[in-house]
């Protein structure tokens, strides 16, 4: 179990006073303090850890976020920013002495401009909500985390979230123009704006992925893109992981960058097939889903080239979608992968390391050996083009020993990623989950540098405490 800080007794004792003060600033209707309603906020997508917060503010305006932050800053009260609460690293996990400031009520689309190809939205708009607002004109917002129906743009900015299509379109940071940012002192500033690139320091780049450590985001201006004419997927099965890895390397070397290049291992193929009946080959050790975009003829040409490349590696199965429906069928299993694993195991931990893609075979062998040592099952899904691994560790939360082994296995897998030249997290963030592993990737000088930046923004370290930085550093 990860160590959690002792709540500050003097803050907890002032609870009624704090709730009243917040209500005076943001309106009583926007403050939650009843035990039953608070419970809804006790955890996020990393649900093994739960802490009921002191109070929850659901702000309706930037000014209310600013007023709540200013008060908490002056009073030395900890703050946990929250959007949809789908974080898989415990980024939005509350603390008993902390006020959660949520942006879920701020869900208006403020401006859409197709000529300038941008949309300005409030921070609580869902990821899919942006695409829904622009798809009528053939546009979309590119980063597409699998949680996109629920997760909100504020959470995406805080985590610098990615998705299956970021090999071509980039992650959140590459698709932002500006944010409205509230400092811990309650000052409201614009970082970036409607234009490209920063003239001074790149505040927008620093804030993106900063996991609620530096301040709060209340509005976001994103770039919207015109969707390609069409897209189609192919599915290729291989008898060995190494061979699938070699095929991936050949694809990239050929000059084709598919929009998506996803990998699944045998346990994952089986779980997904049982769940989605997508027609996945159950005899394969590794499966690639490759998607290309363009006109019909361009898709045909690209798929033919990919087929020729894969054929050189002796695939056990190869299926090319001829229609959008066939593509959807190929994607169906992959998109349901987390749910599918959830059906075969009472609980699972979704890990998120990145490795250099060339080290895939070693990573797979290493993960296999570790899983055996900890006596647990692991299913692997993997954004193969960019090396972002998602091992799903299956365990039983009712069995404390199984959970302890799952956590230890997860930590060892992430350390393996770092040893192979990769990193602890490709898109889910450090949160509380990987906090204590930071020393595996960063030396003391690097961590101290990051902490000085944190202090420059948040001198009292009240924002999202006990996350990102190892506990002894907090």
């Amino acid at each position, binding site marked *: 179990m990860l160590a959690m800080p002792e709540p500050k007794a003097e803050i907890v004792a002032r609870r009624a006073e704090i709730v009243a003060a917040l209500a005076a600033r943001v309106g009583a209707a926007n403050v939650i303090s009843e035990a039953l309603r608070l419970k809804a906020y006790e955890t996020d997508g990393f649900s093994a850890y739960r802490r009921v917060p002191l109070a929850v503010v659901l702000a309706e305006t930037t000014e209310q976020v600013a007023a709540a932050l200013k008060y908490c800053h002056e009073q030395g009260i900890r703050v946990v920013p929250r959007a949809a609460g789908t974080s898989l690293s415990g980024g939005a996990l509350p603390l008993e002495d902390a006020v959660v400031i949520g942006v879920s009520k701020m869900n208006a689309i403020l401006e859409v*401009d*197709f*000529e*300038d*190809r941008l949309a300005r939205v409030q921070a609580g708009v869902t990821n899919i909500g942006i695409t829904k607002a622009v798809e009528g004109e*053939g546009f979309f917002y590119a980063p597409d985390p699998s949680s996109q129906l629920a997760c909100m743009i504020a959470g995406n900015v805080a985590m*610098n979230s990615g998705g299956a299509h*970021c090999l071509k379109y*980039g*992650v959140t*940071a*590459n698709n932002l123009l500006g944010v409205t940012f509230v400092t811990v*002192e309650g*000052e409201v*500033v614009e*970082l970036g*704006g*409607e*234009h*490209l*690139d*920063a*003239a*001074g*320091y*790149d505040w927008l*780049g*620093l804030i993106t*992925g900063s996991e609620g450590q530096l301040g709060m985001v209340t509005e976001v201006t994103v770039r919207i893109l*015109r969707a*390609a004419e069409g897209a189609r997927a192919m599915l290729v099965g291989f008898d060995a992981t190494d061979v699938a890895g070699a095929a991936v*390397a050949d694809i990239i070397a050929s000059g084709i960058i598919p929009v998506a290049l996803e990998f699944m291992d045998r346990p994952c193929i089986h779980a997904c097939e049982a769940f989605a009946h997508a027609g996945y080959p159950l005899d394969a050790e590794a499966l690639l889903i490759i998607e290309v975009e*363009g*006109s019909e*003829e*361009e898709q045909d040409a690209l798929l033919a080239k990919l087929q020729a490349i894969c054929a050189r590696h002796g695939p056990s199965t190869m299926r090319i979608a001829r229609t959008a429906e066939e593509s959807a069928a190929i994607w169906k299993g992959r998109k349901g992968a987390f749910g599918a694993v959830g059906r075969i195991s009472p609980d699972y931990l979704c890990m998120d390391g*990145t*490795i*250099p*893609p*060339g080290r895939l075979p070693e990573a797979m062998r290493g993960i296999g050996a570790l899983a055996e040592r900890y006596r647990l099952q692991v299913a692997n899904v993997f*954004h193969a083009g*960019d090396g972002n691994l998602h091992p799903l560790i299956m365990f039983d939360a009712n069995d404390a020993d199984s959970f302890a082994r799952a956590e230890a296995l997860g930590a060892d897998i992430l350390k393996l990623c770092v040893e192979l*030249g*990769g*990193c*602890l*997290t490709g*898109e889910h963030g450090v949160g509380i989950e*990987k906090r204590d592993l*930071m020393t595996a*990737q*960063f030396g003391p*000088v*690097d961590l101290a*540098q990051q902490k*000085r*930046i944190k*202090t*420059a923004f948040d001198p009292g370290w009240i924002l999202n405490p006990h996350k990102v930085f190892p506990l002894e550093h907090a």
Partner: protein
Amino acid sequence: MPEALTSGMEAPADEAALAARVAAAHAAATPLAIWGNRTKASVGRPVQASAAVSTRALTGITLYSPAELVLSARAGTPVAEVEARLAEKGQHIVSETPDLSALCGEDGAAEGPPTIGGAVACNLSGPRRIALGALRDQVLGIRAVNGTGEVITSGGRVLKNVTGLDLCKLLSGSRGTLAVLTEVTVKVMPAPEATATLVLRGLAPDAAVAALSAGLGSPFGVTGAAHLPAPGRLLGPGGPATLLRVEEFVDFIPYRTERLRALLAAHGTAQVLDTEASLPLWRAVRDAAPLAVAPGEGAWRISVRPSAGPRVLAALEAAGLRGFLDWGGGLVWAAGDGTEASQRAVMAAAAEANGVFWTMRAPAPLRAALPVVPDEPAPLAALTRKVKAAFDPKGILGPGRLYAGI
């Protein structure tokens, strides 16, 4: 052995020597000017420093893995060397780094070609910025020496990484005022097989930006969108030229250009240029060659939302400057008299359009007297000071280069 340079710059032989040099300057509280090869000497405010330190001796590509789309190079490696190495494998850095030596090098200041560290430190990107991202978006990892002489790292060599605060982006564009970059790792991509350019002639800037927006908002993959009011020798006679670039596999080019031509029919009849004609044209746009800057003149970049570009250009022309548009209208390049009046016109036009500006070239007294980038509102200016101090507590790295007194 440190080389003797005409400018008197010191060039530490490796990262450790550079770190020791910075640590000594920190201990003595003596400011340092930080350079690569001084090809962008006129970008930013003049620095008051007793010594100048260059990364030019830190050279060499330390990692190149084409199948993993990643390359690392020491900061002083010439951009051209990186590009040549990538070209051997048919790859490139998508943000197409401009070579501004001719525009921004003070007379005789440059000690060599532009370096990759200098490019990152200025976050310089060419026409593909509008479609595929800035140089800062390609930076995956950095090594750098902060203002106390410590070697810091951020990011790594993988394409997806959200571990800890993103110092790669913070240091990109910080012009050596937070830390001296010693090595950068960038994402690389397959270079296109072929390039085509659609050219519309005779459009006014607002009509041109409407055409560029139509192209950029199409599904046909426009990767460059510029408008040259006076193309001069770059194209034949015919007045202003509006350019849209497509880069693809050879086989895909005819379809893309035909569809774009049809789409743009309402804006005019587009002529199509092939790869051979397109490459020098876009290199010229990238390097701001259409400005044709004369000695003594100033040059500026202004970034605004694309639809505001024509308005900014008109305001600058009214103030006696000339310019052209890139990034679909969102980047205004301007040149003219290197005077306070010009500088103030640029500042006013950028502010009116809710955008930002960079002084790329102007006489040193002017760059010392007036902001070279917009002043920040008070809360951000306070953060700039605090973050600067978090890297460089004694303010020895390029003091005053971005903002007076910081």
